[in-house]
């Protein structure tokens, strides 16, 4: 069973605390059983006149014998209190260590998942369904944590309680023990089946709640439509209907629970009653003492509730198994090869060669076919092509996001595969078309809290990316939070912050994956000019649809269906028919206008 191996992995580093928690818990439970027994002995042999046996007898002698204790009953009280203090200490230690262990385990699972997600392959990452993955990282994790922290412990406690109680009770009186356990199995089974049964009802109620939430969401997000269509009362009716439906489903659960708690409580009480009445008969016959009857009553009472809870735990156990399986799936996903410290770390200059490189996501569908080109250090390469022509794939391979199987990619003559991935990416920076900004401040997004990066560096980068002024216009400047808790940046601002963020790494090669698409042409131009000035020795590769951007490149590649169908400089390409010229013709009237406007 591989899942067990995973559990072991999670326990690593927390095993001692976990075991300690369980051991302390067992000691605590035993002590509390003993405490009850002491009360019984006091009733029987100090206040009553029955001569105790075994340990109880010795205990009595140590404390000075019955006569002495009778005169000084406070000693008995003190014994009880000290027992419960020791018991309390163990209970506390048990809870403390269990918490340390289970929170430690939760932390370990969280870190394992997070670390794995950071180092899984690019292909795996892009195919993740965020909602589903979030569920695995939160509620599935919580289910597993809860199983280890609470449910497993409850299980152990229950077993300890049953074994210990049965042992003590069995020694005292077999008949009463049998009477004491006559209903307990039913209580456990009842709970088990009930919780299996209601979980379906909960599902229905959850769905109804979801439907109600949808009505609210649609209403709130379409409020302008609602107002202009004047459908407020119809919307309200619709909402009331969904809310009533949800309420009614909840009320069904209510009835089920009312039955369950009412009935199960009565049965539990009946179990105690059975012990009491049987006990009366036995005591009258003299086969059990008053004190021991009290012990029985307390033991049975203390057993009933955990066993009722037990039924629930067992009913829920399946969920923990499923959740663990779902977490395992994530951790079993492929890791990015070479995300460790292996590989070469040469000084990268920026000369790049592609030789007969092909790539396919699925075996029969090549997105790149025998692509070859080369670019010298400090030069600019531009790529034009339709969506799906393979241009992004090509760039993603260059930063090692996608592996190449056929052909060869060389950086400064060194095979790309042999270079350490992190080293490679520190030297070859890529700005993605739809950049993701983290919900931190703009400054943190750019500097990543690296102490070596000064405010001046940051401002330099933002100035080149033409976003300095926009940032300064925010109320909190560079300390503005990005995203939900702060400002929502426009598409163009996001792209420009992303450019600044990449520039800060001082890469030898810069790749722009159509990452100026959302900024206007003037800003586009400003950024390009600034780059040329400040990053003169940097090799630049860019994807764009703007002739004005493309025309300045030293080499332009035209890509169609995974192949390079044309290459050359702007002046060469506009001489021949083809995609480039087509685009050029379309945009030339605007280009004319722009020139005239300058």
């Amino acid at each position: 069973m591989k899942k067990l191996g995973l559990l072991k992995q999670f326990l690593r580093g927390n095993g001692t605390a976990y075991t300690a928690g369980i051991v302390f818990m067992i000691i605590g439970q035993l002590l509390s059983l003993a405490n009850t027994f002491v009360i019984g002995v006091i009733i029987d042999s100090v206040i009553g006149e029955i001569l105790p046996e075994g340990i109880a007898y010795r205990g009595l002698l140590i404390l000075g014998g019955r006569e002495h204790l009778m005169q000084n009953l406070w000693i008995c009280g003190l014994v009880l209190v000290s027992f419960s203090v020791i018991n309390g200490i163990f209970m506390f230690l048990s809870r403390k260590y269990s918490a340390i262990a289970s929170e430690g385990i939760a932390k370990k699972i969280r870190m394992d998942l997070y670390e794995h997600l950071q180092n899984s392959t690019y292909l795996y990452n892009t195919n993740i369904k965020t909602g589903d993955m979030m569920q695995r990282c939160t509620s599935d994790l919580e289910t597993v944590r809860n199983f280890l922290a609470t449910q497993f412990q409850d299980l152990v406690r229950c077993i300890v309680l049953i074994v210990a109680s049965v042992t003590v009770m069995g020694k005292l009186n077999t008949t009463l023990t049998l009477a004491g356990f006559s209903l307990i199995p039913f209580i456990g089974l009842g709970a088990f089946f009930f919780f299996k049964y209601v979980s379906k009802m909960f599902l229905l109620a959850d769905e109804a709640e979801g439907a109600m939430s949808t009505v609210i969401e649609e209403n709130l997000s379409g409020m302008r439509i609602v107002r202009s269509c004047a459908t407020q009362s119809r919307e309200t009716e619709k909402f009331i209907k969904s809310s009533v439906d949800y309420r009614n489903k909840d009320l069904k659960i209510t009835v089920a629970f009312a039955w369950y708690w009412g009935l199960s409580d009565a049965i539990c009480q009946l179990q105690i009653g059975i012990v009491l009445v049987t006990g009366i008969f036995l005591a009258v016959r003299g086969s059990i003492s008053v004190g021991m009857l009290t012990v029985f009553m307390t033991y049975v009472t203390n057993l009933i509730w955990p066993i009722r809870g037990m039924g629930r735990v067992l009913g829920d156990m399946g969920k923990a198994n499923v959740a663990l399986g779902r977490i395992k799936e994530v951790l079993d996903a492929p890791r990015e090869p070479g995300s460790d410290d292996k590989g070469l770390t040469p000084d990268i200059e920026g000369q790049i060669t592609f030789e007969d490189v092909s790539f396919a996501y699925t075996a029969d569908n090549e997105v790149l076919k025998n692509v070859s080109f080369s670019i010298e250090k400090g030069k600019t390469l531009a790529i034009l092509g339709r969506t799906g022509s393979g241009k992004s794939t090509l760039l993603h391979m260059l930063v090692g996001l996608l592996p190449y199987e056929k052909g060869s990619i060389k950086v400064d003559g060194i095979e790309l595969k042999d270079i350490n991935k992190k080293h490679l990416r520190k030297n070859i920076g890529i700005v993605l078309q739809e950049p993701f900004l983290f919900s931190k401040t703009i400054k943190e997004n750019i500097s990543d809290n690296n102490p070596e990066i000064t405010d001046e560096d940051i401002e330099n980068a933002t100035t080149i990316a033409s976003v300095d002024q926009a940032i300064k216009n925010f109320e909190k400047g560079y300390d503005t939070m990005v995203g939900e808790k702060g400002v929502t940046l426009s598409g163009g601002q996001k792209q420009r912050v992303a450019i600044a963020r990449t520039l800060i790494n001082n890469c030898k090669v810069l790749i722009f994956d159509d990452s100026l698409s959302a900024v206007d042409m003037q800003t586009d131009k400003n950024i390009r000019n600034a780059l040329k000035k400040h990053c003169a020795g940097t090799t630049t590769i860019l994807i764009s649809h703007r002739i004005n951007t493309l025309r300045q490149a030293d080499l332009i590649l035209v890509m169609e269906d995974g192949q390079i169908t044309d290459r050359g400089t702007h002046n060469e390409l506009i001489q021949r028919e083809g995609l480039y010229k087509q685009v050029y013709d379309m945009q030339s009237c605007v280009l004319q206008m722009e020139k005239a406007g300058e």
Partner: protein
Amino acid sequence: MEQDNKEIFNKSIDVNLWRKVMKYLGRYWKHVMGIIIAMVIQAATDATFPLFTEYAIDNFIANKTTEGVILFAVLFVVLLILKGLTIYIFIYLADRLWHLVSHDIRVDGFMKLQELSFSYYDRNATGSLFTRITSDVGRLTGIISWGLVDMIWAISMITMMTVFMFMKNTKITLVVLTVVPVLVVISIFFQKRILFYSREARRYNSIITSGFSEGIQGATTSKTLVREESHINEFEKKTDDMKTAAVKSAVYSGLFFPIVSILGIVGTSLAVWQGGVMILGEVITVGTLTLFILYTLQFFNPINDMARVFANFQSSQAAGERIMALLEAEIDIKDSDEVIQKYGKITPDMPVPKLKGSIRFEDVSFQYKEGEKVLETFNLDVEPGQCIALVGETGSGKTTIVNLACRFYEPTEGTIYVDGEDYKKIPLMYIHKNLGYMLQSPHLFSGTIMDNIRYGKEDATDEDVMNAAKMVEAHDFIMKFEDGYNHVISKGGGGISTGQKQLICIARAIVNDPCIFVLDEATSSVDTQTEKVVQRAISKVLSNRTSFVVAHRLSTIREADKILVIDKGHVIEQGSHDELMELKGHYYNLYTNQFIEDSNKDIFGTPELIPAECQ
């Protein structure tokens, strides 16, 4: 909400707030009474069970007789049935009360949201409004009804146990009760802290959740920037915080329960000490001593319950405040008394006269916040049937103008005239019911396509709906669905593309036939083919209607009667397309940019938004 965790526990109970909340319980006073009665009986049975043990010891065992055991057993069973019954009743009633009151408050909240002005929506994020009428309401009413249950039980239980004990023996009772004040103080001390740290843990938990969300969505970005390590380290800090808070919370509750049970045992010991002496002096019986022991062993339960209820009430006060703030929010835009006097109270369901559709802004200024003018002395004259295109960057004030024209806002200074009359002097519904609105992201409601197109005009016939759909060229794709117009659009979209959604929205506007139409144009996310269809549909809906378009499409802009270029709340350029092109100013730049984007789309087909491998 979670930041003020510390404050929550320093606040005293706001009686006024709770009185308002309690009003919602008024309608269900029978439930409340039922719960009170059930809980008193419940407590009585709980306090009576130990008496059975006492009786058994003193009468059967001590006298060595089983005479009357049958009656004893029968009474025991009767009592346990009574207890089971009261449990059934209180769970039934309390849960019902919870769900019924939740429903009532939810509905009130929802209805209020239908009336509130848009300024309220600007001040409060949709997400927070959503939480208020869902989870906040649930939590608050849950705490009220279950708090009631626990409170009544605890009070009755303590009272009854005390009374029974006093009846048995005053001296032992007095000695035993000395533990109670200590129990109370300790319970309150711990319950507050336990709740505090569990809220802290919850807060960290939500931080971790968003950490995961970022980690998943930003994984590629982290890779390309080589930030895996630093992100893992950051995340580790978060998980450490979470661990610390959770362990602290566990330590407090881990301390609490042993301490409380030790105190219980102290009570027991006191009973053994005092009681034992009395047995030896034959003042009380062994049974009575057992009774005292049984009582002292469970004394802390009700006290603990009360402390918990108290802490819960305190912590849910914030939720109560949020809900009440919504229910009592001021509606800024409503008909003035004079208007109501003149026209009567006009509700959304009443028919209203058709407007001609002339709109005039006269020296209109507007500010959302004091001192931050987003629009200054703005003037505009719109003839009936004219189309006004608004262009400019995000946040320039385009939407404000539209909101003012729709009377979703009213000007801070100046006047807006609709059909020649100050629109504050005519009923709000006259304007709203003559409006058509199309949002940037097409908004559909769950339901069939038919329902959606008919949305604004319930009495439209199927034929009206189909005509509208044909007009916007949506009929064909609708008929391609197996169930045609009865195709259900679900939350996810239900196999309908964005472009098709736009067409359905336009059809809806056509059926509704408004005389003022507002279009917040999408920054094109559909393919060229659909785009053209959408454009044709839009020009149909715009014709012969006064319209405001927050425009992105060149075709729409060019066809407008007047184009306003807005920057920082001012109109910087205005006129027709040709006039503005002549100027070679701001509009000219915007236009050329847009032209390239549009022409690219012609060549490249689909817009370059999503990388192919992710599609």
